[in-house]
């Protein structure tokens, strides 16, 4: 914790950043807070802890309003991937963001089944090995087609279309969301037309989802959407050898023409 506070204080004092988005202990549990030179005094209330918040989402809003200020932000492994993607998707500017890394604890890593639970460099926490193959995916891939169908339809039909998963997702930065297009998803009907609703969002996640898991945590009906997006990332890796958020070059495979590497036989297998 101390190391983090020292780093942030140093960044602020050296005017490298104009503000730092981190977690502040408030009434006994951490909450997102903008540390700045004006409230340096409260630095010791800055905490890390295992609780995760969509700090990138806040960063997007803030840097949108103050485009010429530079902000620091606490980033875990997934958040850093988020930053890399947001730069590629031109939602942030490279020289306006200074990430400060935190390595996730092994429990958190297990919980997230994250394949890289640590940023490129970090101030707090030690490196724990990522999980190669998510057990949740294996569980579902273990089922036969009928079981999978009933499992997912039951899950999807719990949805109350609160758009919570979209609102919390740092990578959903669209001005207006096509899932609210009356012609596409009928309004005034619960549960929303499935699987169209959820699968459409899943397709949007190609080249976007950084597997931070906030969507699933935000979902009031506990729909395993994270598993869905993990599968998306697996598909994209398998077909196009592209890992979202890993490198700062290269665009998501569905956003460039590129060369044709697939044959019809791969698709219609």
């Amino acid at each position, binding site marked *: 914790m101390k190391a983090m506070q020292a780093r942030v204080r140093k960044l602020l004092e050296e005017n490298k950043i104009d503000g730092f988005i981190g977690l502040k202990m408030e009434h006994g549990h951490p909450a997102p807070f903008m540390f700045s030179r004006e409230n340096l005094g409260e630095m010791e209330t800055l905490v890390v802890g295992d609780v995760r918040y969509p700090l990138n989402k806040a960063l997007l809003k803030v840097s949108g309003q103050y485009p010429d200020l530079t902000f620091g932000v606490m980033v875990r492994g997934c958040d850093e991937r988020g930053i890399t993607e947001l730069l590629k*998707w*031109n*939602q942030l500017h490279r020289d306006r963001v200074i990430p400060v890394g935190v390595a996730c604890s092994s429990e958190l890593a297990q919980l997230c089944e994250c394949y890289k639970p640590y940023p490129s460099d970090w101030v707090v926490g030690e490196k724990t090995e990522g999980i190669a193959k998510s057990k949740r995916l294996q569980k579902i891939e273990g089922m036969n087609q009928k079981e999978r169908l009933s499992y997912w339809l039951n899950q999807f039909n719990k949805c109350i279309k609160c758009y919570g998963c979209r609102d919390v997702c740092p990578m959903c*930065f*669209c*001005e*207006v*969301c*096509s899932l609210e*297009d009356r*012609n*596409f998803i009928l309004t005034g009907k619960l549960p929303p037309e499935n699987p169209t609703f959820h699968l459409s969002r899943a*397709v*949007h996640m190609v080249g976007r989802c950084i597997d931070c898991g906030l969507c699933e945590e935000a979902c009031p009906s506990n729909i395993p959407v994270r598993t869905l997006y993990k599968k998306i990332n697996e598909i994209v890796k398998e077909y196009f050898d592209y890992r979202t958020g890993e490198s700062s070059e290269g*665009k*998501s495979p*569905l*956003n*460039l*023409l590129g060369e044709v590497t697939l044959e019809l036989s791969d698709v219609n297998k």
Partner: protein
Amino acid sequence: MELGRHLNVKILSYSEVLEVEGEPGRYRVRVKEHSRFIDPLKCTGCGECPRVCPVELPSEYQGGLAKRKATYIPYAQSIPNVYAIEKAERPPCTMACPAGVNVQGYVALTSQGRYQDALEVIKRDLPFPGILGRICPHPCEGVCNRELVDEPVAICGIKRYVADRVKSGNGDTKTTVAERRPERVAVVGSGPAGLACAYYLALRGYGVTVFEALPVVGGMLSVAIPEYRLPRDILADEVKAVTDLGVEIRVNTPIGGDLTLDGLFEEGYKSVFLAMGAHGNLPLNIRGEGAKEVVSGVKFLRDFNLGRKMEIGQKVVVVGGGNVAIDGARSALRLGAKEVSILYRRSRQEMPASDEEIEAAISEGVTITYLAAPIEVLVEEEGKVRGLRCIRMRLGPLDASGRSRPVPIEGSEFYVGADMVVVAIGQVPEAGFLESSGVKVTKAGTVDVDLLTLATSRQGVFAGGDAQTGPWIAIGAVEAGKRGAESIDRYLRGEDLRQGRQLREKAKQWDLSGIPLGQETSPRQHMQHLSVARRKAGFEEVELGFSEKQALEEAKRCLNCGICCECLMCVAACKAQAIDHKREDTISEFEVGAVIVSPGFEEYDPTPLYELGYGRLPNVVTSTEFERILSASGPFEGHLRRPSDGKAPRRVAWIQCVGSRDPANGCGFCSSVCCMFAIKEAEIAREHSEQPLDSTIFFMDMRTYGKDFDRYYEQAKTVHGVRFVRSKVYGIEELDGTGELSVRFTTEDGKTRREPFDLVVLSAGLHPPKEGRELAEKLGIELDQYGFCKSREFMAVDTSRDGVFSCGAFNGPKDIPETVMQSSGAAARASALLASARHTLTRKKEYPPEKDVAGEEPRIGVFVCKCGINIAGVVNVPDVTEYAKALPNVVFTDNNLYTCSQDTQEIIKQKILEHRLNRVVVASCSPRTHEPLFRETLKEGGLNQYLFEMANIRDQCSWVHAQDPTGATEKAKDLVRMAVAKARLIEPLKRMAVDLTPSALVIGGGMAGMASALNLADQGFEVSLVEKSERLGGIANRIHRTINGGDVQAYLHQQIDRITNHPKIRVHLGSRVVDSSGYVGNFVTRLNVGNGTEEEIRHGVTILAIGGQEFKPEEYYYGKDERVLTGLELEEGLALHPERYANCDNVVMIQCVGSRNEEHPWCSRVCCAKSVKNALRLKELNPEMNIYILYRDMRTYGLMEDFFNEAREKGIVFLRFDPEDSPVVTKVRGHGKDLLQVEIKDALLGERFAIDTDLLQLATAVLPPEDNKVLSQFYKVPINQDGFFLEAHMKLRPVDFATEGVYLCGLCHNPKSIEESISQANAAASRASTILSKEKLETEGAIAYIDKDLCVGCRGCLDVCPYTAISYVDEKAKCEVNEVLCKGCGGCAATCSSGSIALRGFRFDQIYAQIEKAFETM
């Protein structure tokens, strides 16, 4: 497809040029458009007429491997989509038939088993098919062309079969009788002429009464022709056909007695037709003729046929040679005569009776004595005949009837015993009574008439048949009856009798040229006959007619000589009434400023090369035929089958240079493309073949010289496993009819071998088209010795006549990219010539002001098409129309016979006004072919053309669900509902106009750059020409002569002069491009013009012509020994100081140095020609010089092959080496000086040997230009893996880039010769002028647009656009679509997950609507 609809193009198809005269800029042209017998404006291409057409012939399009009909279009979707009926002159059989019966018509219909239709065709000209089918001596078979193949077609037998077959099925053709007319006509005589006349008059509505002297109807048919040849029921039946029309026949009422001609007129008949026939019998005029037993032939047969009692002698002699004589003899037999013989004074050939009758008589026991005539009837005392004294005859000179006159031979008398004599030497009409009633009669006793109208000397009286012609065949009489009826009809209507009528000319058999070769022969069918025994017993019919199988077989033997047989079935089938068999050819005359000749080529017909077996062996095919076999629209629908037995071949061989590189057969040139299409066919065949295919190509040189061609060849060898055998093929034999072939060939090592194959493809060469010579004369242009169009030096597209340009294979064999380049080049030359007249004749259509429908409630009009029966035959169109009424926002529905026809367009426009429609939906055929037509109509109706939607209920519904009408109707309703759903959401789209800078920037001042700059300037456009170096000319500065001897330096200086002082061209020497931006029509380029200053140029188009580089090798001591030169250096040396090289003893040239290897895996194309050129130049200097050219493949393609031959004739030695052991050059001490020794393993002889050479020329590669990368960045144009620029489409857009407005030409595209560079440069100029010649650039209608408020600038769409039409705008942090560049592929719209991009015309909500409505009811 585009051409068919272009406003400024008029297509005259099925036409030929008649005449062109005038001078460049103003020619008067006459063109003849052959009649299609179909009105192009009415024909909708629906395809009904070929379905009913009975005439099948080999389809040229399918290379003869499949059939097409007489009415056809070349291929399914050909433009113009109008059918054509192919007609030759009328076939001899139809012309020979006196009654003009359409023989080919009914034979063709019979061959298809359509007997009802066949009968209808016959009855148009002959009401009595049953009768004539039996007794007609069928003159038609006499001139039938089939006789030239094997035997004539048994036409008469077929006609009889048709008559019997339809009668037995008690069907008959429906005859429509015109409405009743008051006048009544009298017909004298109920023979074939009288009955026919009555029949046709009745058809025309006249009341007819026939007066028959005898007690029976039918004249000669019933009283002369015996029952065993013409059964009475048949006769009665066909007479009934006449009486059914209300004709009254009065028997036993002869005219001439109490009833006279005048009496008839008094009784009220308005006209009389005399058809009494010729029942009078000619007497012998010899002594003793009066005896009781001497009977006239006609009377004998009449009594016999009427069943009158008559006693018959035991030994009967019949005198005469006609049908009456034969029938008399055979009837006598049947009446019990023991011995019957015939005396005829001429020989067999002259006998008028038909052969079948003579044969039948002989087979029934009648003996015939030729060249004999009776001179006295010998009578016993009580007057009973006991014999004849006769005399032998010999044939003398021809008499009036064209037959030789019989002359008695003195002293040759002889005696014949007989107790009865029948005299049948000819009949004569009993027309005595006519004299008195004012009807002139000829000396021969026949009625005298006007031969054309059959009018007699008395007004209102006509005559025909035997009464007028004397004894002749029944079919002649029928025709006379028909002609008489026509005359009487005209007479009674008071019309002129002669107008528009002419007599039929004599028909003659065609010569062999008209008959398709290779017809398999098949024997003529013969009818079964009654056994001789049974014949004698009674009067049963002897000839029993054809069985159905026989009739079909026989009808199929018809060669369809007239091609279209005018059976008129198509006229009935055509709902659009577009067919008119009388349409004439039309001649159109117009003026043009220039002429471009592009008649293409003709594939060499390898039949003369007997040993290759083409034409003999079915499994030897030409490459075009194989192309059809491979094609999905081909005869085997793309499955690899061989013609002989349809088996899938396992081993296929290709034989190259068939009809090319063959000076002996007058085709010494190389056809340039066969190597490439052989490899392609080999690869495609492997794809199409179910099991692994072994494909082998037998070749001499593998000439794959074009762009990416060599890589294609290497891949074929390595990846696709195509086997290449360098050899000379001598012959192909077939193994005893199994269809298996064996190819005999000799390889380089001299060994001759045979290999078995299932199928052999001959890569036939490209020869000038047959009509090429004739066309050249008409256009006044010269051809070369092979018949290709002669080009001018350096300007391949110019012909010998100014103002006339040529392009494509006509001026020399070439592939499609080359052809397209030349064709654009020719357009450029023509455009330059006529620049001052640009836009003078182009049509600018004015449209009514466009109604603003924004905000209006959708008011949709739905037009459902029947398309004749094409849709209506399967889909219940009224049902669909009714259904459409109920759909939301539909305010008007209608269904039409042909929605695409001209008049329906007017209806649509009318309905738009009447019902204030603001959306139109048409349910008919495919929008691919008809959407532009309907959009045009909307524009003319004042509606935005995009407020239109189509439902394809024909090609994708009725045509493909023919057996499921309910399913098809259901689908049609769904498709209409979907179309209406989308129509409700359509908005008008505007095509925005963007102004443009009408000037061009050409980068690169070499030969190509200069050529395109000059052409554009000549077309009147401003041109800026940028050259990096200090002088123009580029690599051409180092070239002196072309291979055909053209003086390059002279031409170069002439071009440079024209450039420097051309008012429209600004030259920037020593300048480079430093930056460029903008897009088509609005480029801005910054130039560094040397000495640090920069200049900005605004231009509409850019042409890249930055040339190439000569490869400087390291090996072979190049640069280390002045005796080693590159091709260019040697050429410069030979031109500037030839003496240096005159006294060389040995010269060696090594080909492919730096080409066709890993580093530069392409063929540099020009080095073979350059080496041959230099070698020939050296031989000129010193004929004794030994010159060796070491090559891998000699690629002197096209007309350059002649120079390759010349080089060999002049003793230049060509040694082939394989790339693995290419030549080795070493320096060796010898004779006191450094010798340059070239060691080589010659692939032909197989051993290695060395040559000490005084001069070594390396044919070095042509490399891409060094600053291709830089320019590719500036103009966003791609480079291929070899470093040359990558054009938009290798074949169809070889000088365009994908990014519009940027073009390329010259070496930077691919190595090529100077002429080819100049052609490509002109092509680039032409393509550029299509942009510069427009005042404004119009954007496409359906393009993408980005909603500013929704876009978050994530640039996810940027790299999805193939045309880089989307750009990111920094200050607004949003993306924007460049409307000019966007082509409307929709890729960006589908990528943007927030849906802020939409493709106009295909918005997401429109597609969702279609999806939703697709299944609403089901």
